[in-house]
């Protein structure tokens, strides 16, 4: 127990040194700023913000109402564009990437003519329940302006969480997380290790009480810190999509551990910046591209089956499941097994490499 605490203490000292040292290094600092900027950029891109000023509405009209299906700009500058759906089911399907589903009651025109305040059922994707009253107010005001009479848009429990296999934002969020976490890990961790080798400060560390394992653990802690900065920020910004927080956090830890393992493995092999660049390219192709292809719904079954076994595809699937409904235990189980096995293998390789190089 004491040995373990000592190890953690030494790893912590090395890790904190690396965290601060990376902030003093211009290229590491630039990498971190770029990654954080990309997270914020994708968030503000609009694709990931279901409720912004340009609202797309899929309308299911139960009767033949007088609502004009055209693009409308409100006084506050917000624009509303409309699509029609023939049924409630079609509305839900078609609003996969839309902002709002709206059911117009059959007696809408009569109610408006009689001076009543009719209630329209609104449907949204992945919204935090706490945000529902705000959205109801926003849409009630918007549709009152559009229809020229006061109406109430009720969302209440009409929150749609799509199936894991459905196309939608959850796939994109899961993929972006792979991109953010792995790019951060591959930019920071091998660089930390390479610099220690090139400046030979690693020799000084290894004659100090720090063991090779503790040095590696220290680098892993520093890497984890920066993954928390970018991946954690992404997770926080995309939190509106998460339905199963336990699974989401487990998936995030899986992303982090696997990315750290890969970063350490690269760092233990490379000896120059040139090699690092080459490894980065190869690994980005192997790790970041498969889950991107996996998002494609029309992918051939054979290719899909192969991509399923890629660790990053499994991790992305787990995060996608955390944003979905109707996920089976078997689906989760298979991906958990792939993810854990990958983490074990990659850390096994790191330990093997460190032991092999130590004192030889």
């Amino acid at each position, binding site marked *: 127990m004491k040995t373990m605490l000592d190890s953690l203490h030494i790893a912590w000292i*090395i890790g904190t040194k690396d965290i601060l040292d990376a902030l003093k290094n211009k290229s590491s600092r630039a990498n971190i700023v770029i990654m954080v900027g990309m997270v914020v950029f994708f968030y503000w891109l609009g694709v990931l913000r279901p409720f912004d000023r340009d609202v797309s509405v899929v309308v299911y009209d139960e009767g033949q109402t007088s609502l004009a299906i055209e693009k409308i700009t409100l006084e506050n500058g917000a624009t509303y564009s409309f699509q029609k759906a023939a049924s409630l089911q079609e509305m839900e399907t078609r609003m996969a990437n839309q902002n709002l589903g709206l059911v117009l009651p059959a007696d809408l025109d009569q109610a408006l003519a009689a001076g009543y305040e009719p209630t329209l059922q609104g449907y949204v994707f992945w919204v935090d329940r706490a945000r529902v009253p705000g959205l109801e107010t926003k849409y009630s005001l918007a549709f009152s302006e559009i229809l020229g009479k006061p109406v109430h848009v009720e969302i209440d429990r009409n929150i749609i969480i799509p199936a894991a296999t459905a196309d939608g934002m959850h796939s994109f969020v899961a993929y972006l997380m792979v991109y953010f976490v792995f790019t951060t890990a591959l930019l920071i961790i091998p660089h930390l290790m390479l610099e220690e080798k090139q400046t030979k400060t690693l020799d*000084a560390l290894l004659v100090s*009480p720090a063991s090779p394992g503790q040095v590696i653990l220290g680098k892993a802690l520093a890497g984890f810190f920066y993954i928390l900065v970018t991946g954690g920020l992404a997770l926080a910004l995309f939190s509106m999509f998460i339905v199963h927080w336990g699974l989401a956090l487990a998936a995030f830890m899986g992303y982090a551990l696997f990315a750290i393992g890969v970063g350490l493995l690269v760092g233990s092999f490379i000896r120059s910046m040139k090699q690092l660049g080459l490894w980065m390219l190869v690994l980005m192709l192997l790790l970041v591209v498969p889950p991107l292809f996996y998002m494609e719904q029309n992918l051939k079954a054979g290719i899909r089956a192969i991509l399923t076994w890629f660790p990053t595809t499994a991790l992305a699937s787990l995060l996608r499941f955390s944003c979905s409904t109707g996920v089976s235990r078997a689906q989760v189980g298979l991906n958990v097994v792939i993810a854990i096995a990958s983490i074990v293998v990659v850390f096994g390789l790191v330990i093997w490499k460190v032991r092999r190089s130590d004192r030889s």
Partner: protein
Amino acid sequence: MKAIEVANLTRDYNRLRAVDGISFTVEPGEIFGFLGPNGAGKTTTIRMLTGQLLPTSGSAMVAGCDIVTGRQSLKPRIGVVFDSQNIYERMSARENLVFFARLYRVKMERVEEVLTQVGMTARAGDKVQQYSNGMKQRVLIARALLHKPEVLFLDEPTRGLDAHIARDIRGIIAGLARDGMTVFLTTHYMEEADQLSRRVAFLDQGRIVALDTPASLKSKYGKDASKSLEDIFIQLTGNGLRKESENL
């Protein structure tokens, strides 16, 4: 107990024998000069004695610790100044020393003590990348002394330094020995070895070809009194170089 005891220490790199069955002892409080031409095996020997490299065969005890089985116990008992200036350049001298003080679990007051000892107090807050080579060397020595090691390994500590700074560094080394620290010194500068070391060993092609006090070596190998340690060094270690040039 000897500070360093080496018996038949050998190290091979693939087919190349870098260190070939060397044996010697170093007394506590002694400055031991370990001299040899480039590629003679000096750094490999230091790396083995400091636990960084496993020997192919043979054994060694440093500060009472076996270099193979007692690596972790050995670490707090030794200090190493490497042949490269391996300091964290974006950190200040003080930050470097505080980092290593935390690793060695040394009190922070010790950081100021060693900074004073090597004359670096005034610039201790500046980033290392702004230092001259001489200042970096002082910081390296301070780092090696932080935890008050029993044995200090110095690998070419004055290489590339100008005469004034080299003299200052030699003064620091002599002071350490006066305080009872054992110093294992490798250097290219024969005058430095002559001036500082109680005994010197000449290493050539991985083998010790002579080991004694500088005075005894001069009287043993010098045909006349004017011969310097450098003359004897060239006489004893030129064999390998001659063979190399013959092969060319």
